């Protein structure tokens, strides 16, 4: 597992899924949390200054536990929405976990 920051004009993999977060501290913490929650996958980060794509291939988990650890404080995942103008993939939201995924990707686990 590696965090890979893509050049802004690099082609994106169509099977990448995950959140798009407005630039700022929360985005940085989501990158760390996604890296912790998806140990078998590379985390691809595309920083467009105003918004940041944080994606993994086929399936992307984000848990409250990892995000709270990265932030150093309590955080309810529902509040992610405040800084999340978009996300890529199907989504399943639960109190302790958000999951973005595709059902037809070879990266699906």
């Amino acid at each position, binding site marked *: 597992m590696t965090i890979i920051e893509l050049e*802004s*004009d690099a082609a*994106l993999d*169509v*099977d990448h899924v995950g959140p*798009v977060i*407005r630039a700022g501290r929360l985005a940085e913490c989501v990158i760390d949390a996604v890296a912790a929650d998806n140990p078998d996958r590379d985390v691809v980060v595309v920083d*467009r*200054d*105003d*918004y940041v794509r944080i994606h993994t291939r086929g399936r992307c988990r984000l848990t409250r536990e990892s995000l709270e650890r990265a932030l150093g404080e309590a955080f*309810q995942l*529902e*509040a992610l*929405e*405040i*800084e*999340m*103008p*978009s*996300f*890529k*993939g*199907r*989504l*399943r*939201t*639960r*109190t302790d976990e958000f999951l973005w995924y*595709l*059902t*037809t*990707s070879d990266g699906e686990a």
Partner: protein
Amino acid sequence: MLLNRDDWYETSRDLDWTFSYVDPNEVFPASWSGAGDVPADAWQDWEEPFRVSYRDYVRIQREKEGGVKAVGNALSRAGVFEKLDPAHLASAHLHLGGTCMVEQMAITMQSRFCRFAPTPKWRNLGVFGMLDETRHAQLDLRFAHELLKVDPRFDWTLKAFHTNEWGIRAVKAFFDDIMLNADCVEAALAVSLTVEHGFTNMQFVALAADAMAAGDINWSNLLSSIQTDEARHAQQGFPTLAVLMEHDPERAQQAIDVAFWRSTRLFQTLTGPAMDYYTPLEQRKMSFKEFMLEWIVNHHERILEDYGLKKPWYWDDFLRSLETAHHSMHLGMWWYRPTLFFKPNAGVSPAEREWLREKYPTWERDFGYIWDQIIANVQAGDVPATLPETLPVLCNVTHLPIGGACAPHELAEHKSEYKGKVYRFDSHISKWCFDVDPERYADHPTVVDRFLAGDIQPMDLPGALAWMGITPDVMGDDVYDYAWAREYVNA
């Protein structure tokens, strides 16, 4: 011990009961629900991807609202608006005039979901969607109202949809159709899925990034905050699509193929010129084509495929249109600038032209010679030669000008006859949209149809401008007073 939301969520949203003395088909008429031939119990599989409870909703929206207001207050004290590039302002004028009342229309659409959607889970989410759209319309109005004192064009935030301005009529034609006159299922496919999950990202996330770079922090922040609501409530579309793919996939495919093309044409008009011509050169993040590839091709279309939808049958022509169609539209809009309520930037100074050539390898061949003639006319002091004398033919589906929808030199006529009348289209794709459902578009005359029928008097450009509500204080003109054309004299 407190239950967490996962424990009580399903109970809280399944607020349905069995009707004992009323026919369910009268409570939820198919003409509003759009349930069609889908069996009633199929909707039990409808599962929202993005869960929302009222308590969380209020808390989160309150925090969003506080953030938008804090940024707005700080920037208005700093006088940031006065320092913005005038070319960029056209993007904000066009956005607010073109979308504020669409947000208002969306309240009606979401309230229809609240009342008529074929499952209580969806009706529950419609409540939040309705509150979201109320927020968006009110945010736009508040933002614009504060700027009225420095710029009368912001009055068009409220006013535009009460005029007959041609571009606004095109926006209205689309959203009247898919928001106000569509049943719940069709609105979910056309609006929630196609517009909100797909195309609004172009304007509210990608263009917001351009606006942020241009220093318009307040507007950029407003846009992306609005899109955080859209991203959530757009998810109403996916479980609806899943049910349709199981029981009526042809209907889903057709509704989405029509909405995708109509959205493409509209955003080529709204977002294309804003990104590639109105955003100051140094602040452009990427080209319109690059953003379309990121947001529509890579981000949006892949998820539809995951549900088993095919790409629209005209996919190759859609990709081709990304190279040129918005450039054609921009040229037309700049040429017809007196018909706009904002000042467009020509955006073809020598430096801007170099950027266009780099981003679009065929730009110079396709459009350079036309702009060269305009430049020659300006340099000769003949600005009247760069202004329109007549009106363009408009498409009977998109209500946008005919010419160059797929490629600038493909100008073959596309027309259909229906009930003794001839209808004209900007492309074979718009013709297909008409032919599969002609009643939807017939007898909705375009501005030019009205002109030719004698509804607009006197029958000349000033008569048309008066009919469109264009007044001297907002009438469009070249934003830099042709300074870019004079740069070529010294080159």
